[in-house]
């Protein structure tokens, strides 16, 4: 049995994983990162448009600060987010971006003087301040009160990932590539590491660690069409689920991005609309102002995706052999702007569609994009139910996005969570010593080996590619943007049957080493479990909140549903997940539930909302002289590692 010991084991080499690793390494802990692929190829690199942080340097972000970012994020989440965590996040985001600047990200900068921008379809001249020249600038994004999304053209995730991975290399952090964690090693109370399969040699290796962090991204590939990379299959989530104790928070919270190209589902950034691009229908008519007169194309993602779908249902979509779509028009931004700030979009249009977005409209449709749900953690990033297991980034339900994530908040989360969770994971390693039980390790490896042997030896059985396709098809058909009880029930039934069939997979390629079919055979049953959690949680949640839109239950129902779904897989042989709930305590919220300001507000309110609103008013009245920091502390004191507590400086206002 091959065993590798370390202090901090990080599963996943994207932004979140690498940033956790950097923080544990910085504290003198032995750290290893596992990755399916070279770290720089992680899906983080596909984040195009930018990272939100309230630096308030550009003239359209004057007045922005943590409070505004907080309020936007809570509204965006449809009050599903953990407000403590959002506070930690908005406070740390400016530091994160400044640190990345120090590590080499070439953030686009403010240029003093006049410049022409497109706002609401019109050319407008804005004047950047002299004193802000050379500071990090920002663009507009959906669902935000202020321009806050910092960027490098539309290759933001790429430049961030390169800077962070280069930092990790500088620090000598080993990244063990082409390694897949297929099971966690645990005793039901504590996590001790993972069983890892070498994707080249096929060998199973036990990686034992004090702290294990899952940072494997989202589970978009349970859908047939997604903007996600092919590795975003939710395997990290699944191995946590298979412990039987780890909770999968809000699986049903799945985001659909308004503008992926048709048919392949590759993303074109929200920056297209942030920079002034418009959505148009079959008649070339700009329809969003009719639905959302205030925010128009820049309403929150869930809202825009639903409005687009509604509009297509009215027959206003453009017919194509791949079904209906709409147009994204960025021609009004001009050649210079597109070639400088939307280069990836231009390349994608050129290579995959054979069109030039300087002249042509882009065919787009809402497409699965992001998993708000994930491994439920405390604010420290540690699992609420399995000690020593941490999670960060899209894989986690930390939970700063609730039921809808704002554009620009995902790469921001990866870095901020990496810093904070990395800090707490390092504390955990410092404060705990661990006894590794070798018989537990052997037993876990033997169990995984046996599963692989059975797959290889089974002469006849299910075709794994067909199972995957059937899972993806039912998720597409029945667990989409708009949801209904009967369709969700059908998805649950389909997936239950597929899970059963997945116990009988047989493969044609019988080799134990590099074998793509065996990889599929290991992954697909795990993916079906994740999909089942999504479908079942969506079926049970009989309300509409954020990206979870039930046509048969259109109201947001705080009275009964202001709670977080917790799915877990109680017994290995269960055919279904067990679902529990965790209440969100309104009486502790800094920002009690209210309206997001889209469409008609039909929220069914919780009785605590009014009580808390009164309380908040009283607290505010009782402190007429308090500055915003004192007031915030009085409303909701939040935890924070000491190293990140400092107040953030902004041009013109100092630390206020």
């Amino acid at each position, binding site marked *: 049995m091959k065993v590798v010991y370390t202090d901090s084991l990080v599963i996943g080499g994207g932004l979140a994983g690498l940033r956790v690793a950097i923080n544990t390494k910085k504290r003198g802990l032995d750290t290893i990162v596992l990755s399916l*692929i070279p770290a720089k190829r992680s899906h983080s690199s596909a984040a195009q448009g930018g990272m939100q942080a309230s630096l308030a340097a550009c003239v359209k972000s004057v007045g922005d600060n943590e409070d505004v970012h907080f309020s936007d994020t809570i509204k965006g989440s449809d009050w599903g987010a953990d407000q403590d965590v959002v506070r930690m996040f908005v406070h740390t985001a400016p530091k994160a971006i400044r640190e990345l600047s120090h590590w080499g990200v070439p953030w686009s900068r403010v240029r003093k003087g006049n410049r022409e921008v497109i706002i609401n379809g019109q050319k407008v001249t804005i004047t950047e301040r002299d004193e802000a020249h050379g500071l990090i600038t920002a663009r507009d994004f959906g669902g935000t009160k202020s321009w806050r999304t910092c960027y490098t053209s539309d290759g933001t995730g*790429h430049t961030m990932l390169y800077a962070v991975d280069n930092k990790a290399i500088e620090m000598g952090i080993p990244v063990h590539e082409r390694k897949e964690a297929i099971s966690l090693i645990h005793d039901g109370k504590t996590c001790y590491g993972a069983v890892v399969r070498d994707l080249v040699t096929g060998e199973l290796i036990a990686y034992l660690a004090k702290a294990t962090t899952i940072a494997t991204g989202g589970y978009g590939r349970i859908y047939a069409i997604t903007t996600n990379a092919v590795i975003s299959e939710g395997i990290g989530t699944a191995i946590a689920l298979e412990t039987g104790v780890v909770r999968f928070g809000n699986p049903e919270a799945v985001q659909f991005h308004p503008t992926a190209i048709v048919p392949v589902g590759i993303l074109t950034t929200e920056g297209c609309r942030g920079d002034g691009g418009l959505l148009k229908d079959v008649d070339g008519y700009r329809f969003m102002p009719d639905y959302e007169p205030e925010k128009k194309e820049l309403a929150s993602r869930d809202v825009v995706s639903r409005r687009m779908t509604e509009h297509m249902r009215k027959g206003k979509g453009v017919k194509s052999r791949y079904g209906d779509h709409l147009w994204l028009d960025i021609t009004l931004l001009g050649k210079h702007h597109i070639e400088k700030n939307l280069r990836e979009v231009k390349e994608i249009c050129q290579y995959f569609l054979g069109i030039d977005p300087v002249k042509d409209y882009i065919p787009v449709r809402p497409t699965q994009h992001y998993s708000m749900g994930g491994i439920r953690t405390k604010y420290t990033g540690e699992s609420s139910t399995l000690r020593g297991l941490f999670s960060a980034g899209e894989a986690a339900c930390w939970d700063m996005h609730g039921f809808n994530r704002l554009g620009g908040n995902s790469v921001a989360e990866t870095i901020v969570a990496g810093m904070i969770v990395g800090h707490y994971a390092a504390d955990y390693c410092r404060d705990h010593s661990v006894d590794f039980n070798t018989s537990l390790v052997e037993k876990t490896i033997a169990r995984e080996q046996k599963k692989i042997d059975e797959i290889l030896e089974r002469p006849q059985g299910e075709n794994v590619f067909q199972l995957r396709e059937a899972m993806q098809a039912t998720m597409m058909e029945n667990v989409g943007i708009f949801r209904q009880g009967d369709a969700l029930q059908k998805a649950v039934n389909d997936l239950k049957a597929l899970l059963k069939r997945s116990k009988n997979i047989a493969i044609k390629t019988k*080799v134990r080493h*590099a074998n793509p*079919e065996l990889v599929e055979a290991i992954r697909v049953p795990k993916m079906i479990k994740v999909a089942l959690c999504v479908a079942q949680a969506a079926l049970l949640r009989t309300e509409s909140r954020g990206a979870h839109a039930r046509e048969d239950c259109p109201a947001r129902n705080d009275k009964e549903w202001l709670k977080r779904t917790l799915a877990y897989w109680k017994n290995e042989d269960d055919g279904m997940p067990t679902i529990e709930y965790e209440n969100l305590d309104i009486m502790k919220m800094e920002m009690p539930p209210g309206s997001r300001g889209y469409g008609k507000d039909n929220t069914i309110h919780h009785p605590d909302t009014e009580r808390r609103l009164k309380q908040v008013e009283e607290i505010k009245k009782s402190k007429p002289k308090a500055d915003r920091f004192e007031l915030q502390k009085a409303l909701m004191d939040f935890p924070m590692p000491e190293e990140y507590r400092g107040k953030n400086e902004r041009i013109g206002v100092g630390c206020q």
Partner: protein
Amino acid sequence: MSGNGRKLKFHIFRFDPQQPGDKPRMQTYEVEEAPGMTIFIALNDIRAKHDTSLQFDFVCRAGICGSCGMVINGRPTLACRTLTSKFPNGEISLLPLPAFELIGDLSVNTGKFMRIMTERIEGWIHANGEKVNLDSLEERMDPDRADEIYELDRCVECGCCVSACATKRMRDEFLSAVGFMKIARFEMDPRDKRTDREYYNILGNDQGVFGCMTLLGCEDTCPKDLPHQNRIAYLRRKMLGAARKVAASAPARIGSP
């Protein structure tokens, strides 16, 4: 987007170095073309329907991550964004990128190469140990300079330039264009405090920029259209200047031209 249901013929390099007795060979697969089909779609189709053992690497499938470099009809490029409709006679040959360790079939170990390259050139910002206060305003940068750095930072480490490099094929230790482009990127970044002398120590020999034969396969094949020719010429001049300075300070070691 074209697609007339024609039959495509894929001639694919097959070899599993871990399988005792296996020998490199070409294998042909027929695939029915679909509208908008890319090599990514076709290869997945082949794997699911014809040959489940076929190895290849894709991640983003959007031309962003650099995983899928391979030699397509004789030219190293990204497979994910290559449309099958580009090939009028429907014959497509696929080979793994040369100059990298072969994992199997079309899969090569670019990750190992790139990590070693980054360590060799110390491909990170050398800030000379300045401690930054993350609460304060960031250091300012000229907006044009930031844009110029981004231009070079767009490299996706796909390895096409390495595979297309004749010098690299003759000299195993040759740093190659990807390394030059990285150095060019850090050299223009005011946050990196390294001197020309330090860059010279990395680049100033036959394994570095002076070994380049200027055949410019890198420039021809770079999927991100990075300015290889321009930057390699720039680095050569720059390093020549550095070499003169080194020569002036230690003539016995370097010698004069």
